[in-house]
């Protein structure tokens, strides 16, 4: 596992885009990992939240965009609530999801057709609307 860091990648426009979309300063994160430590769905993530921020800090946007992590997030805001530096990972996660969804970079996590099946069962409307908006765009 070797990584060649290229200075121009560190200041990549798309990484700047993540900062703009999420309104978070990626370099403010000092990698304490408190976001990961408190995340209720971290079990299902392939890369823990603090590592996603780290990848962005070192210019590895694609790896972050391709992570399972961003689709597992339930937007519970616990990470943002406890971050000592005020970095809101939940927002970074939303930004990454939006970048994928808007460009249709990968298949949406929730399929609208499948959801209609759940609709007829008993899930509250808010859950369906929430899932579609966060995970389907």
């Amino acid at each position: 596992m070797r990584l060649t860091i290229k200075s121009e990648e560190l200041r990549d426009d798309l990484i700047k885009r993540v900062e703009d979309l999420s309104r978070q300063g990626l370099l403010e994160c000092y990698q304490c990992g408190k976001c990961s430590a408190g995340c209720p769905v971290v079990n299902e993530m392939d890369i823990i939240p603090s590592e996603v921020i780290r990848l962005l800090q070192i210019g590895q946007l694609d790896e972050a965009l391709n992570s399972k992590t961003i689709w597992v997030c339930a937007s519970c805001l616990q990470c943002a609530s406890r971050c000592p530096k005020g970095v809101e990972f939940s927002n970074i996660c939303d930004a990454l999801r939006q970048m994928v969804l808007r460009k249709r970079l990968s298949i949406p996590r929730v399929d609208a057709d499948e959801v209609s099946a759940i609709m007829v069962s008993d899930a509250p409307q808010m859950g369906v609307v929430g899932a579609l908006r966060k995970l389907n765009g």
Partner: protein
Amino acid sequence: MKIPYYPGCTLHERALDFDVSARECAKAVGVELEELPIWTCCGAVFPLVSDSVMEILAPVRNLSYAAREGDKVVTLCSFCYHVLKRANKVVRDDPEKMEKANLFLRADTDAREEIESYTKEDYEGQVDVLHYLEMLRDVVGYDEVKKKLRRTLDGLRVAPYYGCMLLRPKKEMEFDDPEQPSIFEEFLETLGCDVVDFAMKTECCGGFQIVADEDLAVQCSRNVVGSALKNDAEIIVTTCPLCRYNLDKKQHEMEKSVRGFKKIPVVYFTQLLGIALGIGGEHIDFSDNYVDPRPVLAEKSLL
């Protein structure tokens, strides 16, 4: 006292039990909840990206409807409360977004004006968004509520589950201390309950992930339910239809995965309030609950 009320989609459909009990309880404590004449879905989730004017339009539109009815609006569902309150803050703090949202609202009102003769007033954040619990505490007063009680729920061990959306982010919600909140406990103490402190009361139930990844969400809700059980709770109360769904209905899945799983009923806080206020059984409906709370309530002679 009349207060404008925004029920939201879920309370009009799947969570009628929540809506009905809340309205009846309000009456009993002297508040007429006046449902907004028109309202739409709030969007359920708040957009966390910066360029999302479109996504706050729905909540701002609803707030502008509320503005025609009064200076505050009460809501019950945690998601609605979260979205309305944050969108309201955006309007109050970000003039650019306020302007954009109003551009859309004006077009919207133009169309409606002919039919419903609404005034073309811009929405600038003039409405305060209140949660029903805040209404009970700050508008009615817990002391007043106490005076109206027909019975107290003595000895009922209740675990108050806050979930995420009421509390976080602290600076925007300004609802309570996000780590050691107390509004719910104080409410339950008013009813005479034995309040159970449990570690997971502000942890996530899995939320909307239940739609995308049931296993994931069930892991979360099992964690919450397990913590309440460990602390010998007899019943969990919540303010959110989605939390209720995940914590109650998904006990079906928990039973499958955890050997010796003990079930625990999950009810809306307004349902307990209704019982204490002596409201008739037809308004306190438990037919939608997966885990029936009636046995434990009967055991305490509360039915």
